[in-house]
């Protein structure tokens, strides 16, 4: 089945917010931002800015008719800063003008008078100062104190992982225009149309039914447009409402990078205890999450760090504590993996440390401790349909782990300057929103009289192929040509109260809702067919590739004819259905429950070569066995895996988000923030689908795929690290990602080098 969206893409005909035709007279916006990271606003002087020809309005907090509040989980964030600013780039004013150049020029001319306040950028310092967004949370299993006393080996260490810029190729943006009755219609590049609707209604002080949000598709999201698309839509709507004109706001790339949040940097401590055989008996971790200046989704991200703190391993005694630390950086937000990768990097570091100290191979320790059916996670859920060991065994067999090791060893013994390393990364990732209430979706399906089918759901297409998967579900239920089926824009008027397209769950939730709605229609159509064919048992009716069958016997009735008959028989050809994931629950007071519908599994192996003179490296290959369930669309699923892997490798290697101590982002452009390019991405990427692995909890036995593969990228850090150790066994390499060429070189030569600055 061809991916219809792809056909538009390759012809350059798919439209994004900034491509849509706008009415003549549409005004353009530009956001004027705080130049400092923390301070009181004493005065804003807009005289010069307002004198620029073409400026239509400069809106500030005072102009907001409703509540100046965009916080989702916790209401702690203003749309436009009123009295204080808390990070560099915090929006203070919104300039609306004839064009973007004028709006930008005016924004630069706004003069501010601030009383500066102290700036914190480090999460541990924030925790020390009591700057916590919520009280710390702890997940516990067994008793770690008692267990450590019985261990043969106990190791402690510190681990740091950096932020990550989403770098969706389409920057944030929205277009809004006023509609009669005091409402607005918004076209937004968002993963969360309902979040945009809710925030805009709150800002404008109007009910949600007066805000219609429409999303055609988005040019990449990766979590960055889950909550953080809302402010730009709300600003455009504010301008549209106040000026009674269409207003468009597209963030220029550098501004997008500067003012939007990223993956959360973490600083963590671990303590791991093992017996001589390499069994992990006890594990403790403390996570300091750099949340930035407001809660955003940080508390939920932090929760997932705790859920995944033991990755794919069964550890009988665990204690993990997590601090959500408020700093003066842009509020960090969802990013593919949602805290999971940060938690997994810590346990993998702990295992690497144990292996190095004990003289065992990391792979041996990993394998020894893998989860088995029925094992309990620290959050109380017992694992079902566990396939991690199967994936591990398949990986060893399919890619011949022994040969890889031998090849790497041979290379290292015959090369002085270049060294190779490899690392294995198992991934077990829980599927569901960890906030149980969000695990719901609905679908609205119309069949028109010509037999064409229109489907609306809550899912936003952002390249992950959800539209095509929903089409596949409908196609399977109706058994008609997929050309009949059109997936509509995501629209809050057609489908209400949507959960964001996130948590790898969009295809599951909306797929199930679509399946239900289609089945309702199919049920009606069967009755119509039975009546038309004078058959008593409508259950014997089926549609097989456009033809109506009675007990596997072909009839003269086609889908087209059946629709016509149904319409003239006054049978409803529209259906709406709602789906809520069954059997999930979580009790935050006990930190126990069954938060996940199921888990995703897989194992990856990454090989790298390090140039030990220059400190540079190359990722040679990535080989993965992944459990896709029964894939609804193998091309899409493979693409999700390949893309996720490279994004994860980027996070671990070259993607470095750097702020200075004043909270200014130094890597604020594509010229300073680097993501993998076509050459860095290894030519040898092999993704093998685990065979015979149906998932009873996914539509037509399929499985969620969006986030899990990203975490194979973690192996890139350890592959590079292992290669470095082959050059200098004694070199002390911090558990600190990203492993940039700078970190490689400074780690390799830290002890031998005394380079003094010139006098």
């Amino acid at each position, binding site marked *: 089945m061809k991916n219809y969206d*792809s056909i538009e893409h*390759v*012809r*350059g005909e798919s439209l994004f917010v900034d491509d849509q035709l706008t009415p003549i007279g549409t005004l353009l916006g530009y956001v004027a931002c705080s130049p400092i990271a923390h301070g009181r606003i004493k005065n804003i002087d807009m005289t010069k800015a307002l004198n620029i020809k073409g400026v239509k309005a400069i809106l500030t907090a005072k102009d907001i008719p409703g509540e100046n509040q965009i916080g989702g989980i916790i209401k702690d964030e203003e749309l436009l800063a009123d009295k204080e600013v808390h990070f560099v780039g915090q929006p203070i004013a919104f300039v609306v003008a004839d064009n973007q150049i004028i709006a930008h020029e005016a924004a630069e001319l706004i003069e501010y008078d601030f009383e500066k306040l102290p700036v914190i950028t480090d999460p541990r310092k924030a925790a020390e100062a009591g700057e916590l967004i919520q009280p710390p949370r702890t997940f516990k299993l067994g008793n770690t104190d008692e267990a450590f006393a019985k261990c043969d080996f106990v190791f402690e260490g510190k681990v740091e992982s950096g932020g990550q810029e989403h770098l969706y190729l*389409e920057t944030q943006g929205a277009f809004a225009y006023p509609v009669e009755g005091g409402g607005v219609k918004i076209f937004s590049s968002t993963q969360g149309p309902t979040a945009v609707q809710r925030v805009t209604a709150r800002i404008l002080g109007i009910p949600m039914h007066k805000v219609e949000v429409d999303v055609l598709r988005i040019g990449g999201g990766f979590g960055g447009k889950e909550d953080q698309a809302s402010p730009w839509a709300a600003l455009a709507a504010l301008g549209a409402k106040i000026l009674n004109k269409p207003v468009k706001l597209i963030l220029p790339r550098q501004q997008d990078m500067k003012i939007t949040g990223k993956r959360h940097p973490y600083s963590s401590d671990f303590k791991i205890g093992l017996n001589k055989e390499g069994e992990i008996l006890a594990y403790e971790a403390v996570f300091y999450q750099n949340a930035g200046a407001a809660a955003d989704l940080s508390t939920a991200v932090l929760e997932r760090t705790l859920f995944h703190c033991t990755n794919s391993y069964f550890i009988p005694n665990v204690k993990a504590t997590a601090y959500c630390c408020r700093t003066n950086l842009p509020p960090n937000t969802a990013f593919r993996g949602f805290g999971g990768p940060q938690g997994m990097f810590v346990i993998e570091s702990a295992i690497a440390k144990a292996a190095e100290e004990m003289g065992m191979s990391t792979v041996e320790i990993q394998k020894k401790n893998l989860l088995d059916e029925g094992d309990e996670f620290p959050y109380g859920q017992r694992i079902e349909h566990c396939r991690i060991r199967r994936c591990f065994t398949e990986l060893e067999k399919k890619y011949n782990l022994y040969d890889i090791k031998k090849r790497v060893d041979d290379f290292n013994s015959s090369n002085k300057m270049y060294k190779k390393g490899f690392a294995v990364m198992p991934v077990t990732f829980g599927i569901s929103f960890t906030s149980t209430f969000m695990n719901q979706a609905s679908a609205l399906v119309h069949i028109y009289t010509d037999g064409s089918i229109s489907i609306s759901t809550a899912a936003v297409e952002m390249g992950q192929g959800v539209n095509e998967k929903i089409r596949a579900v409908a196609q399977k239920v109706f058994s008609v040509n997929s050309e009949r089926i059109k997936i509509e824009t995501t629209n809050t008027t057609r489908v209400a109260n949507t959960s964001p397209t996130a948590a790898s769950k969009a295809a599951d939730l909306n797929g199930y809702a679509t399946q239900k709605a289609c089945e309702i229609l199919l049920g009606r159509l069967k009755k119509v067919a039975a009546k038309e064919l004078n058959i008593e048992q409508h259950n014997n009716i089926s549609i097989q590739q456009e033809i109506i069958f009675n007990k596997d016997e072909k009839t003269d009735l086609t889908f087209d004819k059946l629709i016509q008959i149904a319409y003239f028989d006054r049978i409803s050809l529209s259906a709406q259905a709602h789906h809520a994931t069954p059997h999930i629950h979580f009790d935050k007071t006990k930190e126990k429950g069954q938060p996940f519908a199921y888990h995703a599994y897989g194992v990856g192996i990454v090989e790298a070569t390090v140039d030990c003179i220059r400190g540079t490296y190359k990722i040679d290959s990535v080989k993965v066995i992944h459990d896709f369930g029964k894939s609804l669309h193998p091309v899409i699923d493979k693409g999700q895996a390949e893309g996720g892997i490279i994004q994860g490798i980027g996070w671990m290697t070259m993607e470095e988000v750097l702020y200075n101590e004043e909270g200014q982002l130094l890597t604020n452009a594509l010229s300073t923030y680097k993501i993998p390019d*076509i050459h860095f991405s290894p030519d040898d990427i092999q993704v093998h689908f685990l065979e015979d692995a149906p998932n009873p909890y996914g539509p037509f036995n399929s499985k969620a795929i969006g986030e899990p593969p990203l975490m194979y990228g973690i192996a890139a850090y350890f592959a590079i690290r292992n290669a470095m150790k082959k050059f200098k066994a004694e070199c002390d390499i911090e558990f600190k990602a990203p492993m940039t060429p700078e970190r490689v070189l400074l780690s390799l030569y830290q002890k031998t080098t005394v380079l003094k600055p010139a006098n």
Partner: protein
Amino acid sequence: MKRRLNFILNKNEVETSQHPGMSLLDYLRQEANLTGTKEGCKEGDCGTCTVLIGELIKDKLQYKSVNSCLLPIGDVNQKHIVTIEGLNREELTPIQTEMVDEGGTQCGFCTPGFVVSLSGYYLINDDYNTEDAIDSMNGNICRCTGYAGIKRTANKITQRLKILAKNNHSKIELLVGEKILPEYFLDVKEKLNSLILQKKSNITDDNLDFSNHFTISGGTDLMVQKWEDILKSDVSLISDKNVISGIKEENSKIIIGGATTASEIEDSPIMAKYFPEIKEYLSLFGSLPIKNTATVAGNIVNASPIADMTSIFLALNSTLTLRNSNSSREILLKDFYKGYKTLDKKENELLTLISFNIPKENSFFNYEKVSKRKYLDIASVNSSLFIDVDEDFINEVNISAGGVAPIPLYLKETGKFLSSKKISSAIIEEASEILQDEISPISDARGTAEYKRLLLRQLFYAHFIKLFPKLIVIEELV
């Protein structure tokens, strides 16, 4: 300077009197309503805005890929612009089909840029291989696919076309026949010829007095930094001036015109003759679209401390020719930089030529660059070394270092120390200490000062490890 511009946009002849400094991207999206070409970064670092530019050179229609966000529309006068819309046929082209089938597209925002770059590869080159086809997309960034599906596409198409390319067809006929290009490409050459004949008079502008306006030579940095100011000013395009482009050998010198692009240096047989690894060096300089536009003079005059072409010319101890309307003068490149972005150059002077002595038989050259990402990135530190030896002894050595001072640095003292020394690990190590006294790196997004000091030492070692493997014992240096 206000004037009318005439060009062919996909299959249509168009005329505009927009500001010549307006970026082609803004023209395409805002004026021509061709939204398949996207704005991703507006600094030539993502490739979502990639288009092809066709030009008649010596009666041959030649295409190149460019970043339309950095190209002033003044530079497309009398040329053929091909956007994604101009590649579409009624049915998908084979490239588009494979991109769909191989999972080469996800969110779709970068996709038109990839399709344009890859289609351009087959249009621009005479014979095909997968490696080069993939390299033609080195300026295109994709955040979704991890490039695997895109590489599979390039491989499949290349395998199919490379056999056919051996036949005697004209390339455009071949690609039209294979449905890679639409039919109208067959008529472009003729159309361009008649466009040039009709509008011959509107391009010559020999005024060399440039005070009070922007002079754009390529524009790959200026259009990033100053695009809004450019729109408010008069602009002069080097492409309109009588500044020479091209590379020639003359009286034991190599002379390079200021308007020569990085791509022209990369493809120059003269450069390849004396610098066999020139293609590898240039592969580190930037993406193909950037190299197709960026000029030597622009790179030198822009005075970035990490300028890559400048690094090479410094080590070759090059001489610059500066010219104004009345006179010209020569200056050594190593004396050209006075401080951060300040030059020994008057406002009305243009850098027209760069020249250096042809390397002798016993001389060697090497260029090193390390950046966070190997390709399409700005150096943390770069360095070039030119060395003339008599067996194991150094006659003369010129070393440049970028990213370690406010200017592209010529390492005078280090070179002086090494002169007439015998090459050995010990001498190199000693020289690396002198080198540390010549530099003054600062910490920034490309690395800490500490790192840049260490990295330059390592690159300095790397020059000698690479050029004189038998004289250097690696173990003594690590």
